[in-house]
């Protein structure tokens, strides 16, 4: 089973409100990733976990938080959503020794109004 699940699939949020997105995988992968994808643009890595170690990209460091309560779950948290956060958020996972081989979930489409 190479399934990565994401919930919800669609999320509507108000400007200034928090948003929490959930991802899960059952492949026992030790690495999990979050990407942001806007229309007609490439997926952009936001952050990733090696086991319990969080790595955030420099240009999105303060905009996104994440937690990984166990190996299977990972969340993406936006403390105060802005219009610019409207995008597709993709979760992926991989083995630590095969980080190039990432399995993606179907994504959560976030619309901020």
């Amino acid at each position: 089973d190479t399934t990565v699940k994401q919930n919800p699939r669609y999320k509507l949020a108000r400007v200034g409100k928090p948003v929490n997105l959930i991802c899960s995988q059952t492949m026992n992968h030790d690495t999990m990733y979050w990407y942001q994808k806007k229309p007609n643009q490439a997926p952009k890595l936001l952050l990733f976990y090696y086991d319990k170690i969080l790595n955030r990209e420099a240009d999105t460091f303060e905009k996104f938080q994440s937690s990984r309560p166990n190996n299977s779950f990972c969340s993406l948290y936006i403390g105060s959503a802005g219009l610019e956060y409207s995008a597709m958020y993709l979760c992926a996972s991989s083995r630590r020794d095969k980080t190039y081989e990432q399995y993606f979930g179907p994504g959560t489409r976030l619309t901020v109004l």
Partner: protein
Amino acid sequence: SQWGEENLQALSIQEGEDVTMNCSYKTYTTVVQWYRQKSGKGPAQLILIRSNEREKRSGRLRATLDTSSQSSSLSITGTLATDTAVYFCATEGRGSALGRLHFGAGTQLIVIP
């Protein structure tokens, strides 16, 4: 950006035709991957080609890699309507950049039945 192209490219062809999509990248990589993203789903890896390989085949797919020009191509022979998707190329950094996939903006391929 890791990639030369910043904007999504678009191709529309008739079913049965062959197609080639190109990418160029800016920094050193040991691996180039091609992903396909169908509507409503996350990206799925199609083919991976390493820097010591010039060509890799998988069914109707053929990937090439030219490290001297830092470019890669993906060809699909005998396209089907089900090949309609966005195709991304991606590279992975090395050292501290392991796990950080850099995606190109992608090619929107539409195969008309």
